[in-house]
């Protein structure tokens, strides 16, 4: 059996804002094996990116990890000082493709400069060595190594996204977190990037957390899927289970909302309302105000994740 590269237990990350405490990641547990891709889905504002940043050990201010554990390759990273995280963990052990990163490339520096700078300054690499490495990874993601000499505006959207992916791979991390890596791209380029990620998964045995709100894209690559709602994982399991035997009403509704390319759908379902404010989430099951099956117990007590089938967990009083 493949080894576990990432182990997350009872993780809580709250934003301490002056309006109150936003419980964006609230008691999240899962693990990820080598060569495995876990998809993370849920509506906007459910805490997907927040979880991603937290796993990198760098919640955005005013966010703080308040509880729980994150083990990368067996090493606990919660509580490590910032400089240790920066030197030994981030990019080396776990890296992230940030939401919208391709548009954040600096227009005044070459691609090569932007790729090698962190290697030289944070990891103490020699310039030549860093440049060699950048070129090697550009080639790996299907770009001409000469791209190191180009500026961002000389590249198409698809090429920029490949550069961003190459950057995340530079230090050969055990885990890559990809936050909406294809969302801004056109459908053909999106499919090309998904193909690239499938290839990296196979050739490098890459372990990945793939974040998107689009369940169709997620199915293209994920071995297992976690569905997040209001800061919590409400269902998690093998992809086939999630897509063909969804257990949680939220997962079921999300899937019923997708128009299908090759199927006649009479009517799309939708979930009325919107995810709750995470300062004062609803009592009991956080989904109860929008759930068509809500019962008295749902309004009072919070359901816990329960194993309903082999490696398939959901948190709902109906189960």
């Amino acid at each position, binding site marked *: 059996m493949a080894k576990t590269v990432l182990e997350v237990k009872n993780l809580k990350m709250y934003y301490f804002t002056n309006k109150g405490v936003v419980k964006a990641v609230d008691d999240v547990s899962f693990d990820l094996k080598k060569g495995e891709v876990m998809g993370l889905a849920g509506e906007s504002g459910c805490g997907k990116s927040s979880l991603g940043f937290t796993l990198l050990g760098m919640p955005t201010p005013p966010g703080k990890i308040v509880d729980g554990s994150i083990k990368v390759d067996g090493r606990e990273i919660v509580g490590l000082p910032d400089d240790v995280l920066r030197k030994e963990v981030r990019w080396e052990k776990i890296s992230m493709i940030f939401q919208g990163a391709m548009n954040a490339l600096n227009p005044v520096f070459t691609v090569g400069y932007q790729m090698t700078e962190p290697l030289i300054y944070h990891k103490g690499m020699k310039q030549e060595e860093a440049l060699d490495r950048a070129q090697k990874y550009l080639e790996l993601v299907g770009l001409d190594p000469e791209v190191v000499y180009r500026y961002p505006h000389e590249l198409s959207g698809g090429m920029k996204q490949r550069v961003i992916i190459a950057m995340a791979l530079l230090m050969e991390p055990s885990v890559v977190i990809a936050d909406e890596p294809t969302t801004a791209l056109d459908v*053909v380029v999106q499919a090309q990037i998904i193909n690239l990620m499938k290839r990296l998964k196979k050739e490098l045995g890459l372990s990945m957390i793939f974040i998107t709100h689009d369940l169709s894209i997620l199915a293209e690559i994920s071995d297992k899927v976690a569905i997040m709602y209001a800061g919590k994982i409400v269902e998690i399991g093998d992809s086939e289970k999630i897509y063909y035997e969804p257990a949680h009403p939220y997962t079921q509704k999300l899937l019923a909302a997708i128009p299908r390319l090759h199927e006649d759908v009479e009517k799309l379902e939708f979930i009325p309302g919107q995810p709750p404010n995470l300062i004062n989430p609803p009592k009991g099951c956080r989904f109860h105000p929008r759930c068509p099956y809500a019962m008295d117990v749902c309004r009072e007590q919070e359901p816990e994740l329960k194993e309903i089938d082999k490696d398939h967990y959901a948190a709902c009083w109906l189960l």
Partner: protein
Amino acid sequence: MAEPILKVENLKKYFPLKRGLLASLRGEPERFVHAVDGVNFEIYKQQVFALVGESGCGKSTTGRLIVKLLEPTDGKIYLEGQDVTEVRTKEEVLAYRRKVQMIFQDPFASLNPRFRIFDVLEEPLLIHGIGETRAEREELIYKALEMVKVTPPEDYVSRFPHMLSGGQRQRVAIARALILNPTFIVADEPVSMLDVSIRAEILELMKDLKDRMGVTYLYITHDLSTARYFADWIAVMYLGRIVEMGPAKRIIDNPLHPYTRALLAAVPEPKPERRNVIKELPIRGEVPSAVEIPPGCRFHPRCIYAQKGLCDVEQPKLVEYEHNHWAECHLVGKF
């Protein structure tokens, strides 16, 4: 069949490219973005006509030409038989705008943040002089909000746009388009920026309004799955031209043009069993710039079937290969 509501003939829009001072001093010729480059189609009453394609292919420009936010470089647009390019005076344009409305992609940007919802909806009424008294206008505003299910209206009219969710904002934008009781709506990527569930909600709403109010839509999207769900017809655009057009299901199930096939192959589907299979994408490279249009068939540099001496030389014509099913390719049926 009846007369079409909207008819577009050989429509063109070229945008001049900004030249550097040096280039103009040297007398270099002015260059153009060929955003829309000879487009023809018809839309019938109470139908949804989808315009699909990658970004930059000219979908929004076509929509903006139809609502007269832009004037065409060449070609004609007819609405209910009336030549839209002849609509010129302020009064004529106003009367035209009342019949043709547009919904935009970004529900966050398309509503004035300083207007309360009441004002957002009253503005078009005031511009078009509808409703004598405030009470009359209020009645129309409440009715429009009820129609798009932002209810009860009294809870929403005094809110500002930022106090609504993304879905509610898009509903208000739709209410603003509907309040004038238009014949025709151009919906430019109305659900692209929304979450799946809200997306489904808005599509259902637009469908319902079509059935109940007899609205006709031009639905602009890059998403073939929603096009199949919502539209009766699909036209696929590439670099300013329609390369294939026909009934929605036929385009999806039996595409004739190599570009349509490539687009369809690229659509992600919620089927995890194929997660380890690398998808064959029958297309090369990325969309070239709309300034330097390739000669011959403009798709040939990316086409895997392109024939030397034919495709790179001669521009194909949009031909009706099967009843109601058009494609612009020399080699239809030969690959």
